[in-house]
């Protein structure tokens, strides 16, 4: 188990380095090939050549690519100082770059916004696991019943409807129509009820989509597992049916669900853009959306990296959990 863990950790570290290099390449090399001047996109309407040159210097854009990557790497551990035009900007470690658009170091932006996204993703995950699994298992056990058909129709709706659509309806009905909620994000530190009230609609909206997906997968997996030989063995032992379901069938059903959960959580941390934008949550997704609008490359780069990191960590956790659940994996 320990060897397995070390192996996975090492693989994750290697992946992260590769990701940094690839992302860096995409953001700084591709524009170069496309003949787009990054520096001039940082400067305003009246592009002053001196200003463009200064930005280029500050960002080290005229340096060879390997030294740019190296500076970036080094910055993560030692911090970085950008200077040009008589102005010195220090970006303390861990420095994930500096946005000359909003004049902020990226790391504080990320740490400021990450909890919002994390709260959104985890809260929604809790909801969708609860409802998705329950609905899926019930549907499987009562296959063909009215409940099953009803649940699967709702699930189909949930999977098909885009989140901005359900989100808009939720907002229109509960926040603007019935006026039950403020639908305004409030930091947890300010007020728990405000925080909860601001997140409950996004949670439900997001959970609706995923619960639907999870219900369908759970149902299908459960039905498949119930046909397995070892379930028959469990029954042949004289186990009561509820124990068969709980102890034998559920554990196997959880494996694919867990894999999905890992990927979905990881992806959500960087990709809840639609939800965050629909509910105006100040999370990473919104940051990256704003950054795309304003061509703020360092922010996009930072969010991409932190997202990759989140996906990696989520997958690592899943891998470990997977190994806990399925002993066969530990050998792999």
């Amino acid at each position: 188990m320990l060897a397995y863990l070390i192996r996975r950790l090492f693989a994750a570290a290697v992946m992260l380095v590769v990701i940094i290099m690839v992302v860096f390449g995409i953001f700084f090399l591709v524009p170069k090939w496309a003949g787009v001047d990054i520096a001039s996109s940082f400067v305003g309407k009246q592009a002053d050549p001196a200003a463009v040159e200064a930005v280029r210097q500050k960002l080290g854009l005229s340096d060879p690519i390997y030294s740019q990557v190296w500076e970036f790497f080094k910055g993560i551990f030692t911090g970085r100082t950008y200077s040009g035009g008589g102005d010195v900007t220090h970006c303390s470690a861990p420095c994930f770059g500096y946005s000359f658009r909003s004049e902020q170091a990226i790391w504080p932006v990320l740490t400021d916004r990450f909890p919002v996204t994390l709260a959104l993703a985890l809260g929604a995950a809790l909801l969708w696991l609860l409802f998705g699994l329950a609905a899926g298992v019930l549907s499987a056990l009562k296959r063909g019943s009215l409940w099953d058909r009803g649940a699967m129709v709702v699930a189909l709706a949930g999977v098909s409807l885009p989140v901005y659509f359900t989100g808009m309806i939720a907002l229109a009905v509960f926040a603007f129509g019935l006026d039950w909620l403020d639908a305004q994000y409030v930091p947890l530190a300010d007020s728990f009820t405000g925080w909860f009230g601001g997140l409950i609609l996004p949670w439900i909206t997001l959970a609706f989509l995923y619960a639907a997906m999870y219900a369908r997968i759970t149902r299908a997996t459960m039905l498949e597992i119930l046909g397995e030989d070892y379930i028959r063995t469990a029954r042949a032992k004289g186990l009561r049916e509820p124990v068969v379901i709980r102890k034998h069938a559920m554990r196997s059903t959880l494996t694919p669900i867990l894999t999905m959960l890992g990927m979905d959580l990881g992806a959500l941390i960087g990709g809840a853009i639609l939800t965050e934008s629909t509910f105006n949550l100040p999370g990473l997704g919104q940051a990256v959306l704003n950054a795309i609008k304003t061509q703020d490359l360092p922010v996009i780069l930072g969010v991409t990296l932190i997202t990759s990191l989140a996906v990696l960590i989520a997958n690592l956790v899943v891998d470990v959990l997977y190994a806990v659940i399925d002993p066969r994996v530990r050998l792999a």
Partner: protein
Amino acid sequence: MTELSKSGAAVGEPTAASPAPSAFLEVRDLKVHFPTDDGLVKSVDGLTFQLEKGKTLGIVGESGSGKSVTSLGIMGLHTAGQYGKRKAQISGEIWLDGTELLSADPDHVRKLRGRQMAMIFQDPLSALHPYYTIGQQIVEAYRIHHDVDKKTAKRRAVEMLDRVGIPQPDKRVDNYPHEFSGGMRQRAMIAMSLVNNPELLIADEPTTALDVTVQAQILDLIRDLQKEFGSAVIIITHDLGVVAELADDLLVMYGGRCVERGPAEKVFYEPRHPYTWGLLGSMPRLDRDQQERLIPVKGSPPSLINVPSGCAFNPRCPYADVPKDNVTRTVRPELAEVGSKHWAACHMSQEQRERIWTEEIAPKL
């Protein structure tokens, strides 16, 4: 929809009110039908047999002949896992040690499962839960029926593993199924089945998934354990060779019904049904040459929804035209006694069959 028409069993002809039999296990006119969208699948359609303690019954037939469903029916597992599907229909009687199981309280039957009757499955890899250690699974099986702590149960598991010939059982008990070889897994499976000293052991194709050398070891093990525990054993197989040395009685199934039944040596040396001949012909024998020895039964098993009229075997039977008036295609033959405790269901006359067997079939085998 269900057509529980004339019983296929010629012997006993028991009615529902019939008294408890003297045999340890007696199955009377067992029918297991599965309603599907395409029609009623008559997996078992009138099966009758008896089995005494300490004896071994071999049920032989192709896949789809109803042999596995029979065993599930006895265990009360024929409807298990059929969530939302239309329930299987079962009728007839299954008497186990004086109790009729089909009319008994399902929870009572559940308590018998694993305790009084246990089962060994074909593929031990898929029949063992991949996420639990061998020990955990044996312990679970034991503790369902014995109110003991885990420690005691584990000691029992180690003991059983030792008994079935697993080396270092105290270590292997904590291994997972995937860490065992195929033969070891089947031994573990057997250990799990026998952990509660069941009086009836049903082995469903216990060696099919194993390689040849291991097969013999497993069969030896089953025989030894049977002697030791004195259980009644049903071995279900498509391979006559498996039961050749093990079984006291043989029951040949075709299309959900019994076509021949009798003491093993009778069925082997004086088979009185063309299907049994076919099975014997397709049996691998070590003393024969590769080319000669496998004479498979031509054609494919019958549909269990539209069983051929007359003798179910007639489309594949080389002798279907021996009896006159096309009777093989119109009238279903009943089991008839062809010797002491030996029954077969065939329209051909005794003499015809004896002649064909001795003159045409036996010499080739």
